[in-house]
């Protein structure tokens, strides 16, 4: 879903040359490449399996009653309150890319609040079941739907353990150019792939930081120097429904 028609930034060109050199060095000494700070891919290069994008969410820092991540996602990707054209669908038919959930431990009464979205599994059940391959995972771990070959069978929604996907029940208007949505197809959180491909941060993470909650960290799980990897190494992180063994790209702390 990256926009390849944008003009190529010369500094990116330089990066390609440097990255090429780094890759060459990596062939000789793999350890060298691993310690190089990870960069997003240049716009004219395919995504690489040397990155795995992930988000770490600290539920202890997540604000009870705060909805900033959800609102930011709506605004960025043009759904929910940011999409007045989805007005005929009932509430249970409307699209939801990210939602806030508050849970209480039955034994301890401890209350936790957290955002829940597509967990960008390493082995996503939605990709396994999709008959046409419309549901797919990029080399860098981001799980997406190719709206051109989605036939709208909704089997991925049956398979997703997180209820992360939505089917579009009506015609939509004025969509964001980077987040095309369409009646009769399925969609979900893209980890703001259009931003990630431009070295950016997903809108939800940005909004959380702006609220100074700093409950969300975005980064490359394969880069051991990245903040997310360091945090995970130091404090650990949990997967929701870890029993399914899906190795999710979204990890939680404090649940």
């Amino acid at each position: 879903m990256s926009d390849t028609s944008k003009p190529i930034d010369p500094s990116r060109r330089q990066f390609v040359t440097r990255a090429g050199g780094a890759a060459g060095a990596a062939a000789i000494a793999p350890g060298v490449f691993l310690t190089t700070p990870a960069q997003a891919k240049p716009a004219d290069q395919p995504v690489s399996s040397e990155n795995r994008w992930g988000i770490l969410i600290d539920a202890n820092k997540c604000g009870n009653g705060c909805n900033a991540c959800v609102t930011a996602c709506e605004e960025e990707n043009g759904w929910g309150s940011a999409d007045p054209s989805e007005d005929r669908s009932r509430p249970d038919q409307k699209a939801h890319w990210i939602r806030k959930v508050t849970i209480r431990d039955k034994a301890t009464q401890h209350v936790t609040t957290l955002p829940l979205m597509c967990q960008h599994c390493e082995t996503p059940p939605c990709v396994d079941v999709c008959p046409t391959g419309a549901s797919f995972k990029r080399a860098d771990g981001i799980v997406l739907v190719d709206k051109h070959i989605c036939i709208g069978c909704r089997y991925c929604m049956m398979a997703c353990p997180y209820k992360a996907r939505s089917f579009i029940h009506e015609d939509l208007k004025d969509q964001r150019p980077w987040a095309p949505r369409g009646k009769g197809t399925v969609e979900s959180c893209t980890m703001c792939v259009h931003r990630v491909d431009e070295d950016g941060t997903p809108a939800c993470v940005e909004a959380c930081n702006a609220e100074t909650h700093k409950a969300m960290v975005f980064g490359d799980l394969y880069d051991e120097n990245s903040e997310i990897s360091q945090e995970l190494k130091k404090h650990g992180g949990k997967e929701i429904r870890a029993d399914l063994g899906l190795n999710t790209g979204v990890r939680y702390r404090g649940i």
Partner: protein
Amino acid sequence: MKQVLNYRETEGKSTGFWILLGGLGALIGLALGSVLYMEHEGHYVTGMNNQIVWGMPHVFAIFLIVAASGALNVASIGTVFGKSLYKPLGRLSALLAIALLIGGLMILVLDLGHPDRLIVAMTYYNFKSIFAWNIILYNGFIAITAVYLWFMMERKMNKYYPVAGFFAFIWRLILTTGTGSIFGFLVARQAYDAALLAPMFVIMSFAYGLAVFILVLMAGYAWTGRPLGDAVLFRLKNLLGVFIASVFYFVVVYHLTNLYATEHHGVERFILMDGGIYTKLFWIVQILLGTLLPLAMIYHPTIGKSRPAIATAAALVIIGGFAQLYVLLIGGQAYPLVLFPGHEIVSGGFFEGQINEYSPSIWEISLGVGGVALSLIMVTIAVRVLKFLPTSLEDSVVDPHAAKAD
């Protein structure tokens, strides 16, 4: 003296025939109208939503697809297992199998978000998806059964039909395994995720398919005034009894397994006790009306020999089958996903942890009924233009030895 087995087209001149065609045609027309409306407006006009993503159309479609493979059993018993009593029924059995499958597939395809992209489904395959496999299995089933039918009906090819029949039998077992696996492979849902679902769907197909076959056979022979002997009918209804009992066994094992595993207690409690409509459908329609009552009727020494009772028992099996699929499909989705074991949901933005609501719209029901009508109209027209039905299925025609043994 043994009469010769003779196949003949139905006359198809009576007012009843045209009323039947007209009625079924009207139902198909209504279904297509509903599809146009649903596809033009979008699925917001249906009862389906982002929690119950598969609804009434899928209950109808899966019933027909499962019944299709089961309807072929009658032919298989004659061809593969060499029971001569069943051989005269082989053509109708294979015809019904193809017709039911096409009816089911029509529903499934027309409910897609993008039925216009059917060509995509036929050209892009993800071979890890059981759905993709099913597309191949369904098309293959139609092709193989058509060849089987041709070999049965064409004298020159007659000697090859046992081979075709054998392949069709194996194929149908794989096909229903594939249909059951659509649910069996859903690891995240409490009601599914069970390897048992595949063989359970196979045995469900035996019961549903035979029940449909018995009703079509009885109606076809009654409406065309052709004789249908007790030997055939009683054999079929006894077999139906065995199949009903087998489905019941699988249902019991499925629930006992879930009841043993603590993590599944929630969903079992929902289906068996607190599920409202699903609990009622399970106990009253699926178990009482769809299982125990037809079993009692079929094996009752006097009622079991009454034709209206046999027809009623077959109809009850079909009604019970719809209830069973409704409980499994819709009930399975109505029960929420368990994301946080040991926690209760305080609040959630997207119907978190709630029992999901579903009430089917008239459009979905109309589409489902249209699929059934399409299957039946195909059979009605086929028996009118080709030699599917023996002119007589009297005891003396079918096989005197088999009749005696019954």
